[in-house]
Every structure is written in C-alpha cells, then in structure tokens.
C-alpha cells in the first residue's frame, strides 16, 4: 500500500543522519560520558570528610534532570540511598569503636567520629553507585555497544551483551509460563520451603534446556546474515562524533580530578 511504503521511506530516512536522542547530554558520545562520570565518581576519594562525596551525590540528580532521565534515575538512586547508603551508614556508625560514645545500647556505642566515618564511606559508595546508574540511564547499553563497535570492537563481542538482554526477556517469559502451567496442574509452588525448593527444578530445567537447544539455529541464522563475513561491518545507526567542546570538557574534568588526587597525595587537602 502506498501509505505504508510512504511510512517506511519516512522511517528509513531517520537513519540517514546521526542518531538524535533529543537531548544534548544524551547525544554525547557514550565513551566521553563514561570518562567524565568515572572522574566525578572517584573525585571525592581525594578529599577528606564527607562533604565532597555529598556534593557529588547531589550533582547526579542535576545532570539527570538536564539529560531528561530524572524519571528513570531518581527512583533508582533514592532506593539505593535507602537500601544501601543508609544501611552502610548505620552499620558503620554503630560498630566503629572509639572514645566518647554518644550513647550506649548493649555492645553498640556510636561515636561522633564513627558517624563521620560512616557518612564518608556511605557517601563514597553512593557517589560511585550514582555514576554507574546515571551512566546506564544516559548512555544506555545499546548506544554504548554502538560506540564500542564504531571504535572497532568486534560485533561478536557486542552481540553477547545485546543478545543477553533479549534472552533475559525471552527466558523470563518462558519461565513464568511454565510456572503458571505447573501451578494450574496442581504442582505446589507455595507452602513450606521444601515444597517451594522442589518446584524450582521442574520450572527451570526445561526452560534452560529449550534455550540451549535453540543455539544451533541461532548460529545458522546469524551465519545466513553474513555475521561471520570477514569484511568490516558498516552501521545503519551512527552516532554523532564527539564534539571538540565535549572532549575539552572531559579533559578539563579529568585534569581537575587528577590535580585533586595529586594535591591529596602531597598533603594540600
């Protein structure tokens, strides 16, 4: 139909230019984003106390906001703060021994120094965690793999990672189908732990085996698509090359963090 083919032409044209993800930060080269975030994440280690780490933790939501990924990033990051950050802080604050405890509760005697140390450690972990979460929200695995391929990484390597996402979806779906089938057939999946443990095996073994049995056909079908050809592959989807100002920005950030570490080593801080 003419209207349908009209759609496909319009659709195809989007590949004639670099991917536009609709946001200057998300359009940045994933590798540049990676370098900048690593530098920011480790920077607080150079500074004493917890203030630097706290600032970095506050910088991430701002970046996420400008990158238009706040909706994905913030809930995850908040959850991490509660589940990981808070627990790390409490455990440290409670168990690090020292003089002048603030109060006593059995063996637990938190001190001000312990609280400070706990806050520093928890915030350092959160600084690194935030960088990881933000990176995957901004760059996404798909574009990271594309950036790596464009830099010469073999598609066989990126295939493993990209295909694993689809495999997780497919296997998950299959496993849930089998689980429901087992339940409707009266196989118990609730009740005591031995009953539940026994249900685990018949759900998963057939699902896993079915997936393994498909590998042969997957190998043949990708081979039929010239996956094993020796010529260098081209790319339908292309990323805009990193802009000079982005590279300058990355270099400045990395240099600043290096200076901080050198300063820390020389005892300036």
């Amino acid at each position, binding site marked *: 139909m003419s209207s*349908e083919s*009209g759609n496909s032409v319009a659709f195809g044209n989007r590949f004639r230019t670099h991917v536009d993800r609709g946001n200057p930060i998300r359009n940045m080269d994933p590798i540049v984003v990676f370098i900048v975030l690593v530098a920011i994440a480790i920077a607080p280690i150079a500074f004493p106390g917890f203030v630097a780490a706290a600032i970095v933790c506050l910088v991430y939501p701002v970046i996420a906001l400008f990158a238009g990924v706040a909706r994905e990033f913030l809930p995850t990051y908040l959850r991490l703060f509660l589940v990981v950050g808070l627990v790390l802080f409490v455990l440290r604050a409670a168990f690090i021994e020292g003089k002048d405890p603030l109060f006593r509760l059995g063996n637990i005697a938190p001190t001000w120094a312990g609280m400070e140390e706990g806050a520093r450690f928890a915030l350092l972990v959160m600084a690194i965690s935030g960088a990881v979460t933000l990176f995957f929200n901004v760059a996404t695995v798909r574009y990271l793999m594309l950036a790596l391929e464009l830099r010469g990484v073999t598609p066989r390597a*990126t295939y493993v990672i990209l295909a694993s996402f689809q495999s997780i979806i497919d296997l998950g779906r299959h496993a849930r189908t089998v689980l429901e089938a087992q339940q409707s057939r009266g196989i118990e999946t609730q009740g005591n732990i031995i009953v539940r443990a026994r249900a685990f095996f018949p759900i998963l073994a057939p699902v896993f085996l079915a997936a393994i049995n498909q590998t042969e056909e997957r190998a043949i079908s990708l081979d039929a698509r010239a996956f094993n050809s020796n010529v260098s592959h081209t790319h339908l*989807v292309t990323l805009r090359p990193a802009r000079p100002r982005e590279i300058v920005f990355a270099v400045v950030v990395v240099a600043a963090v290096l200076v901080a570490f050198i300063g820390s080593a020389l005892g300036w801080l």
Partner: protein
Amino acid sequence: MALATLRGVSFTYAYTNEPALRDINLTLEEGLLYAIIGPNASGKSTLCALLRGIVPLFHEGELTGSAEIRGRNLFDWDPAELSREIGYVFENPFTQISGIKETVFEEIALGLENLGMPSDEVIDRVEQVVEQLELGALVAKNPNELSGGQRQKVAFASIIAMDADVIVIDEPTSQLDPESSDAVFAIIANLKKKGKSIVLVEHKMDLVAQYADRVIALNGGRLVIEGPTSEVFTSPLLNASDIARPAVTDLAEALAKVGRPLARTPVTRAEAADLIRARMKGGPRANRSR
C-alpha cells in the same frame, strides 16, 4: 555450470544411526525454481542444509559420495563465501530474529551491515524489500514482539535483501495464511524472473504445482523422482511413495478411475479449469467416443 551436482550422496548425522540422505544423484540447474517435496523426515531439510554447506560443515556427520556446489567441491568452499552466495531461510521463524535489533527495519538491515554495505545503500535496499513484501506497517515494530507469521516474513525479507544469487528456503509459508502464502510465492516467482535460482521445501502442493519449474520428491532419504513439475506430479512413482499431490491431480485421477478422464492430467488449478471447461463444451462428443 550447474547449481549443484550430487553424485551418490549419503549423509548420516553424527550420533544417529539412520542416514538422512541415501544415495542421492541429482543435478540442479541455475535460474530455475526447484521444489523439494516429501513426507516428514524424508530428508528435505537435510538436502537444503547440504546445498548451503550447513551439512556437513556445521552439523557434522558422515558424508559419502561427492557434492559440488556451483562447480566447486563443497569442502573447497570458504564457509563465509558460501553463505554469501547462497541465501538460506529456514523453518523456525523464532530463531531467525537476531534478538539484537530494536526495529524490523534494523533487523532487515543487519545482513547488509555485515556485508559492509554503505549505510545509504542499506537504507535504499531495505526500503525496496519492505515495499516489495508490503512490510511497511511493521518497520517501526520490535521484531522480537511479532507473531510467527510476521517473523517469517521478516526473516524472508532479511535474506532476500542480501540479494544472493541462490536462495534456499525451507518451508517459506509454514506460518502463513493462504493469502500471504500466495503473496510470498509471487515474490519468489519474481526473484526467479530476475535470474535467481531458488530451491524451496513446501507442503502446499497447489503452490508447488503453480510455481515450481522442477520438483524433487524424496522419501525416506531417497530420491523418488526429479523432473519437470507436471511430469513428477503425474508420475506413478510419486503415487507409489505416498507423497501428496495437488488436489486437482487427485481429482483428475478419481475421474479417470470412474471412467471419465480429462484429456490430460492437470497439476495446476488453471490447467484443471481449462480442461474442465473444454470438457463441458465438447463433453457429449468425448463421451460418445468412449
């Protein structure tokens, strides 16, 4: 140069006892549409796999006899080169989607990217194939969320986009309704017109009768008969080996049995329609002559 020359070819898959192909002697010419027919487990898929080198290069086993593909011994081919010259679409549409692309458009483009085609050409080629197969409504969809029939079409499109000289298709219509099956065969016929050689496995005998130039009938791994479509379908050999025939051929035979044969045995519907029309006009005379 023949597309394939098999001399006394037998093949037994590793870890099985029964041979999948037994003593096959066959020459396939370029530029024709061959249909491989036969009951289940008669060796159809193995023959397809052999033409594409998957047997015995990927699925190991014991191959005896000699197999030449386009004038070169199967074992002298570089597997990557063979996969470029011979396109291969197989039965299961679910394992033919790569699982690494987000849209049908990108899925169809995958093979072309792997061949190193510049991206502007890739886009043009994919658009052509999409139009040809009327897949416009699917291009933006996630190929991993499609139905079996849709996946089958996408898998087919992905291979014909690569424009190989020879295309081997194992059951192109197994997941399709009659209307889509007709459409797919029309496209295959068009490919042949452009000079491609086609070898396909098909169970829908009416389609085979209508489109195939020659038919290869297998049974139990043995070649029953190979020849022009109408000859094969009217051959007593086929009858003896319990292989399905087009409905109109069966009908003509039934008529013959009750003493009212058509002027000749038809294999396509169009032929049957003509013969029956002729008989209805000249019917009385034909009857009187008996």
